[in-house]
């Protein structure tokens, strides 16, 4: 998350929004979000409604394969998924940014 915060402008430049979803309750999540001054959108989801939805409908989550990152293109299609092996492995930003560049080219 720290890397995402540092490089958020690189995502903005590529016409992308970053949305992070966490399992904490709203208050815990918001406190953390404010304390760390995260610049992008953070969604507390204590009921895991979104990860369940994506697990069922897209079948992208295997048990124990969190954290995960997805790229959704401007047509609303899921184009890439990325699994991190641990919390510290959350950001391979350069790879994700490269994919965003590819998708931008495709869409022009």
């Amino acid at each position, binding site marked *: *998350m720290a890397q995402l915060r540092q490089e958020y402008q690189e995502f903005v430049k*590529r*016409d*992308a*929004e*970053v*949305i*992070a*979803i*966490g*399992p*904490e309750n*709203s208050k*815990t*999540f918001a406190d*953390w*979000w*404010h304390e760390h001054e995260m610049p992008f*959108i953070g*969604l*507390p*989801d204590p009921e895991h*409604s*979104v*990860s369940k*939805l*994506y697990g069922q*409908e*897209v079948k*992208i*989550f295997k048990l124990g394969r*969190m*954290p*995960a*990152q*997805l*790229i*959704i*293109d*401007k*047509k*609303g*299609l*899921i*184009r*890439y*998924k*990325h*699994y*991190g*092996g641990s*919390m510290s*492995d*959350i950001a*391979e930003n350069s*790879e*994700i940014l490269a*994919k*965003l560049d590819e998708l*931008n080219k495709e869409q022009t």
Partner: protein
Amino acid sequence: MSDIEIIESKPAPDFELSDSEGRKVRLATYKGNKQVVLVFNRGFV
């Protein structure tokens, strides 16, 4: 270990949740407008 996998393009299921500031965020509003990097966390705390 991590890797990006190319997957079959599938429509992203829409959802709406309140963000850290209490604003409603709906995925569908980004369609046609921005790419979205959706990050699922195991937990911060």
